[in-house]
């Protein structure tokens, strides 16, 4: 408020003292703008000169007033011409450099005061990673996850190891009685029984047994769950899976047939995925109750009739019924060649190599493994019993003719499928021969021999052309 009053007084005094029309920027101001002030001043002078008596007192009063004013405003500054422009509206020049208005002066003063009063603080530059460990919670979580995975790896590996050793302990004695070689390490030069599994991976163990009549050998595969992999453990919890034992006996000889029995799911799986079952077991599967088995089991065979009854005799039926919860599938085939070729894989020109096998798949119970694994021995004995039985079994003449016919049809089908491939192979062979002959002719030093070979090649090409023309004419005649 005091500031405003001070400014007003300044304004008044400057306009009173200076009658100039110039402003700070040198712009001309018209006389009319200040006409009021000039007239007022003249009127004041005239009024003062008109009346003496009464005016004598008034000028004195006026003079006194002015003296009073002067006394009151001792601090008032009489602005000179230089300050005249500064007294103009400061808002016009606010913020501009060289703005020496009162407000800016005040601000500058306060800023300086503040700077001088605030002490200079130096904050030490502490590296980010030393400031607080709380922010690294994601890293700690990652590390914890890794630790959990590693711990699970060791626990899972140990568990799988114990299952394999439990199976081996309960079965090795019987295997030693049946086979000469029990457990073979391929890295060894000599064939020596190791009586140990070969560890293919942390969840896959194999045992090879050989040296027995009626079979070339027997491969026992323990296909366990991937307990060493945490992600597999979690997925197994979501989608239950079981440990499996696959006993595959390779026979020396057997009559030609394909037969399988198992749970509905496993039989369907075999039919879908196995080359031999898919090709030869054309008829629909039949319920196990027809053959004295549980209703949960199904029979799929190339020949229905006497064959299933011959294979599933009393002994086999007894063992299968006693171990219903553990038994998964049994496949007997003389044309086993592995899984069915997918669409991406092209069929080869050659007929796939077929093996005569008996494959028994068992599910290891998930609970009380140590108690229930020794019970699987009966099923191993059944597998060896079937080996001897199938080797000695002879199909009737009729059945044998049927199976031979099936195999011939399968061969023809494969030949048709691979016809294009074989044609291409034959064409390539011919071209190779011709190229070899030409190279031989070119490399021949003797000009006479060279001429004769050239004639020979030319004659062959002519004969080929003639043959093609003759064939073409024959087709035309036939068409007509």
């Amino acid at each position, binding site marked *: 408020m005091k500031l405003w009053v001070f400014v007003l007084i300044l304004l008044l005094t400057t306009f009173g003292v200076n009658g100039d029309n110039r402003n700070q920027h040198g712009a001309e101001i018209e006389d009319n703008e200040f006409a009021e002030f000039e007239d007022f001043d003249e009127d004041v002078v005239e009024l003062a000169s008109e009346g003496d008596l009464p005016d004598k007192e008034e000028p004195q009063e006026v003079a006194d007033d002015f003296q009073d004013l002067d006394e009151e405003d001792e601090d008032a500054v009489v602005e000179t011409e230089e300050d005249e422009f500064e007294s103009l509206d400061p808002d016009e020049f606010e913020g501009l450099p060289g703005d020496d208005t009162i407000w800016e002066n005040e601000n500058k003063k306060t800023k300086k005061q503040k700077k001088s009063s605030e002490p200079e603080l130096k904050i030490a530059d502490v*590296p*980010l990673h030393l400031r607080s460990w709380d922010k690294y919670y994601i890293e700690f979580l990652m590390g914890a*996850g*890794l630790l959990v*995975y590693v711990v699970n790896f060791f626990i899972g590996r140990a568990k799988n190891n114990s299952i394999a050793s439990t199976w081996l302990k309960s079965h090795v004695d019987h295997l030693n009685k049946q086979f000469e070689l029990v457990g*073979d390490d391929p890295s060894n030069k000599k064939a020596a029984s190791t009586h140990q599994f070969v560890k293919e991976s942390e969840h896959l163990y194999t045992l090879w047994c050989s040296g027995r009549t009626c079979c070339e050998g027997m491969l026992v595969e323990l296909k366990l769950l991937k307990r060493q992999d945490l992600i*597999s453990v979690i997925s197994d919890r979501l989608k239950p899976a079981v440990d499996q034992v696959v006993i595959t006996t390779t026979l020396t000889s057997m009559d030609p047939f394909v037969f399988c029995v198992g749970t509905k799911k496993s039989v369907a799986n075999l039919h879908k995925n196995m080359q031999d079952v898919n090709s030869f077991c054309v008829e629909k599967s039949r319920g196990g109750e027809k053959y004295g088995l549980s209703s949960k089991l199904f029979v799929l065979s190339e020949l229905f009739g006497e064959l299933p009854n011959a294979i599933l005799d009393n002994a086999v039926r007894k063992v299968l019924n006693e171990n219903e919860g553990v038994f998964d599938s049994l496949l007997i085939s003389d044309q086993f060649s592995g899984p069915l070729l997918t669409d991406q894989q092209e069929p080869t020109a050659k007929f796939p190599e077929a093996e005569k096998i008996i494959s028994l798949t068992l599910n290891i119970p998930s609970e009380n493994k140590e108690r229930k694994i020794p019970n699987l021995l009966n099923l191993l004995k059944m597998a060896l019993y079937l080996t001897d039985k199938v080797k000695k079994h002879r199909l009737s003449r009729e059945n044998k003719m049927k199976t031979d016919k099936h195999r011939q049809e399968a061969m023809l089908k494969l030949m048709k499928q691979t016809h294009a491939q074989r044609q291409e192979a034959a064409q390539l062979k011919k071209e190779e021969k011709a190229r070899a002959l030409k190279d031989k002719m070119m490399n021949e030093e003797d000009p006479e021999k060279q001429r004769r070979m050239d004639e020979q090649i030319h004659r062959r090409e002519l004969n080929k052309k003639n043959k093609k023309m003759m064939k073409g004419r024959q087709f035309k005649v036939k068409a007509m």
Partner: protein
Amino acid sequence: MEEASSSNHVEEEVITNRHKNYTVNRYKPKAEEATTSDDPVPDYMNLLAMIFSMCGLMLKIKWCAWCAVFCSLISFANSRSSEDGRQVLSSFMLSISAVVMTYLQNPAPMTPPW
């Protein structure tokens, strides 16, 4: 008496026993192609580990480096004994180096995307 066959090959040594009328055949492991088609997980995880390691090193992405470590561990856990252990080990070391390099270049903690 046992007799060695005429072939005498290390992998297919056949010992014939005339008295007992059987042959002792050596174990023939499955071909590598068959085993890889059975379980392709270790190969895919190995490849993923390499890719994540490269991304972590080149692009300085921390979560890529951590994923590489996990992938190499999974590949190791599922690997077969017949496979070369050096490849798995080199993949693991590469992933560890990716983690170390990303944190050396930028020690700031990882921030979640939310």
